[in-house]
């Protein structure tokens, strides 16, 4: 991106215009394009897909009326919410209350700067990429706490406090799990981490050794907790806190919170893909065709990260919400020690020679495949045991 701009400046495309102005305009344009072309439809379609997947898992249908199979439902919801009255309660903090959704939104949108969609398809390949993501996604806490405090409402405040406690706690196992990968890759840059892996599962960091395999699940769980997803959605637990920190919000500001939540889901998937699943790596087959290679990289990355979005939806339909004490117990008593063990184990594997390391990697991969096969056997068993009316089509 910057290289292209520099080339155009050298060619005299923007003669007479200061370099800084060109950069500033390019930055704003990029942000607008990314937001309107990629992030907004992505978060919207994710919200629709989540409702459909969730509904099917509960033997319901889900939204299927707006557009083909309801795929435009998010557009209808968005337009409805934008046209609604923007209510600021009289007792709320008049400055912080309107500001909070934008902080939450910014925290999630800034993460898209370093997400590598392809070898050259990245806004900025910062050399501290993954640290940057951990830092900006923590900004969400500030926004949520701000929303909870400024609403001047007991439920909002409780939700905000819970969210802050939860996100700050789960930063630690998430950070330690990320650290295992940073040790292996020797870099914090997102592109560097991907380049340290290969296209095949045997070259992915998740199957590098048994400890990274565990670290992946620890990271994913911690990321779900940081994204306030079920089963860790106690900040907005509707059975206890009405809607938590979003209780007093309506219309567009309400929309921004949920926009951030669904967008964040994709960020979780993208980071998990980058760190553990080989990112955009494609087989060497595409080397001769630059355009085709770029498309293949984007598709690979998108599908891999969207699979984890699907898994997050799936977990949401499966597990019940945990209590606050269970949540904290899970983090401090189980996940923090386990992530330390994973970190230490990975350090141990870094001293091992390549051949024996490969053997352990192959064992991990074999274990994962066996688990997957066993899983689908269990699915088949559950399906047959219920003797249901089968319906294989995704649409209804």
């Amino acid at each position, binding site marked *: 991106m910057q290289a292209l701009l520099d080339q155009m400046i050298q060619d005299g495309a923007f003669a007479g215009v200061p370099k800084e102005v060109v950069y500033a305009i390019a930055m704003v344009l990029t942000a607008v394009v990314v937001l309107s072309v990629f992030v907004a439809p992505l978060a919207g379609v994710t919200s629709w897909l989540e409702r459909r*997947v969730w*509904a*099917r*898992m*509960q*033997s*319901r*249908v889900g939204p299927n009326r707006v557009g083909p199979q309801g795929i435009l439902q998010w557009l209808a919801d968005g337009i409805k919410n934008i046209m609604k009255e923007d209510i600021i309660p009289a007792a709320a903090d008049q400055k912080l209350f309107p500001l909070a959704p934008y902080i939450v939104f910014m925290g999630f949108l800034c993460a898209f700067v370093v997400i590598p969609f392809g070898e050259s398809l990245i806004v900025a390949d910062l050399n501290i990429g993954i640290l940057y993501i951990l830092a900006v996604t923590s900004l969400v806490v500030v926004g949520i706490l701000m929303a909870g405090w400024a609403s001047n409402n007991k439920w909002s405040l409780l939700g905000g406090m819970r969210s802050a406690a939860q996100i700050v706690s789960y930063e630690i196992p998430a950070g330690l799990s990320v650290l295992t990968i940073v040790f292996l890759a020797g870099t914090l840059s997102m592109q560097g981490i991907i380049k340290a892996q290969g296209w095949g599962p045997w070259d992915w960091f998740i199957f590098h050794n048994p400890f990274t395999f565990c670290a992946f699940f620890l990271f994913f769980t911690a990321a779900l907790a940081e994204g306030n997803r079920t089963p860790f959605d106690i900040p907005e637990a509707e059975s206890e806190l009405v809607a938590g920190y979003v209780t007093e919000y309506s219309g567009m500001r309400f929309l921004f919170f949920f926009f951030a939540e669904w967008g964040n889901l994709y960020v979780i998937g993208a980071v998990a893909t980058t760190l553990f699943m080989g990112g955009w790596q494609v087989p060497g087959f595409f080397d001769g065709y630059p355009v085709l290679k770029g498309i293949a990289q984007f598709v690979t990355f998108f599908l891999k990260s969207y699979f984890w979005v699907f898994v997050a939806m*799936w*977990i949401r*339909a*499966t*597990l019940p919400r945990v209590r606050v004490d269970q949540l904290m117990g899970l983090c401090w008593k*189980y996940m923090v020690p*386990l992530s330390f063990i994973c970190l230490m184990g990975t350090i141990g594997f870094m001293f091992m020679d390549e051949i024996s390391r490969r053997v352990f990697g192959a064992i991990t991969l074999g274990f994962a495949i066996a688990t997957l096969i066993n*899983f689908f056997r*269990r*699915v*088949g*068993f*559950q*399906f047959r045991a*219920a003797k*249901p*009316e*089968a*319906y*294989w089509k995704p649409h*209804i």
Partner: protein
Amino acid sequence: MGIVGSYVKDIQDAITSTFEGMSITFSHLMRRPMTIQYPDKIPVPIQETLPLRYRGILEVDLDICTGCLACERVCPITCITIGIDMNKESKQRYFTHFDIDVCKCMYCGLCSEVCPTGSIRHSQEFEGASYNPAGLVRHFAPEASNLYKPKKGGETEPKLITKVDIGLKYLDEFATPDGGGAAEEEA
């Protein structure tokens, strides 16, 4: 089991229960949803799937109505109004109006129980939406029509045989308090 054992068992329980739970939810993806997508995306109209004893909006088959006024008298909220007049020359009695106000009807079913021929009965129809209450008054005798008079000991008129049979079948199934299908269902 010591502290370490219970700690390991907690982790094992978390993993296995999540594993099992996710296999159950995934198997639900292959099942047909229970939802009936009323009113459009259904194979047959919902009215046809309702049982015979369903108490929908009242309907009257005037061809087999004897004009005995039993339903009008038994109705607790007088939602049925029947007007009968007589042609002085031919001594033929006829309906001037037979109106049922669906707004008032509470679907108690008393009228269809007392009807001797089963001409007034609950239909399977339940979609009664209307823009004003007057639109819910059903006029069953828009123009004057003659009363049905069963012949004593004689044959029923051929064109009415099917209608009489439907009415009697309805009486048997619905209006008889312990007869017909009702007793079997409860047993």
